[in-house]
């Protein structure tokens, strides 16, 4: 779990200044096959690595077969995908009662600071609530201050788990 932490790149900040034309409404909905290329592009722009097979695999597992606890959502406005969020309910991982895990969230760099990330997170949290869990978790690099700030601004606090790792010698 937490393998997509590096993709978490929603920057908090001031809302954009309103332009004269009203911006198109943002809709958050389940991902469709036609959205996958946009998701791959957003992730590649943010992380610098294109992971086509990875995202297609996720689409097959989460997009084509969404169970109650699995969610792969996109934010769309004016026919364009602005961001995505992906997560699922995991039962008794790490000894924890069932809870929702957000393991990937990204917003197109030119669409940030307009509430897209907040809408995506709110939508997946609603889904987790409907799935019957009362806790949402994520994990991400402590170097990613802006993304950490985003999750903190949404009310998330440090949880009771400490991630550990070790380098395996070849």
């Amino acid at each position, binding site marked *: 779990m937490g393998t997509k932490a590096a993709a978490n790149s929603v920057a*908090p*900040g*001031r809302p954009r200044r309103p332009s004269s034309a009203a911006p198109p409404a943002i809709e958050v909905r389940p991902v469709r096959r036609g959205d996958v290329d946009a998701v791959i592009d957003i992730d590649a722009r943010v992380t610098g690595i294109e992971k086509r097979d990875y995202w297609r695999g996720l689409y097959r597992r989460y997009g084509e077969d969404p169970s109650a606890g699995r969610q792969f959502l996109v934010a769309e406005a004016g026919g364009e995908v602005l961001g995505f969020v992906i997560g699922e309910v995991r039962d008794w991982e790490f000894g924890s009662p069932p809870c929702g895990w957000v393991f990937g969230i990204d917003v197109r760099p030119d669409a940030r600071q307009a509430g897209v990330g907040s809408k995506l997170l709110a939508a997946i949290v609603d889904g987790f609530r409907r799935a019957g869990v009362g806790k949402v978790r994520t994990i991400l690099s*402590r*170097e990613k*201050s802006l993304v*950490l*700030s985003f*999750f*903190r*601004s949404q*009310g998330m606090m*440090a949880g009771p788990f400490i991630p550990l790792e070790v380098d395996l010698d070849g």
Partner: protein
Amino acid sequence: MKLQKNSRLALYSVLEFAADPGRHIAASEIAEKYGVSPHHLAKVLSELARAGVVESVRGVGGGYRFTGNARRLTLHDVIRRFEEISPTEAERREPGERTVAGHAIATVLSEIDEIAQATFRSITIATMLRIMARQAGGAAADKARR
């Protein structure tokens, strides 16, 4: 984890100003609320003014007001004006630091420092105000239940 007195005073002040950014608040009001000397607080506020976080307003109804960006300003930005969040090289020097045990202890302490820094960097003043509102709401609800 314990913050130095000036850091705490700075955070108290910034949170007071940011909670009501349009209002000019007298230093004496903050000093009284937090039980500190106005003289001591004045030094902290001067540093915050130098950092562009607050500005002093002279005259009747004067005081200080918030001029920072609460959604950008982090706890780390404020605290580092008053103390080193991570110890300096000189402060890290301890007897036995060059021994194997000394290196192992330094590794663990450095891990703790990094987590503390990441925490301070990730919490903005706007988030702190939300935490305060939530806790105040929780406290009010507890009181109502009693």
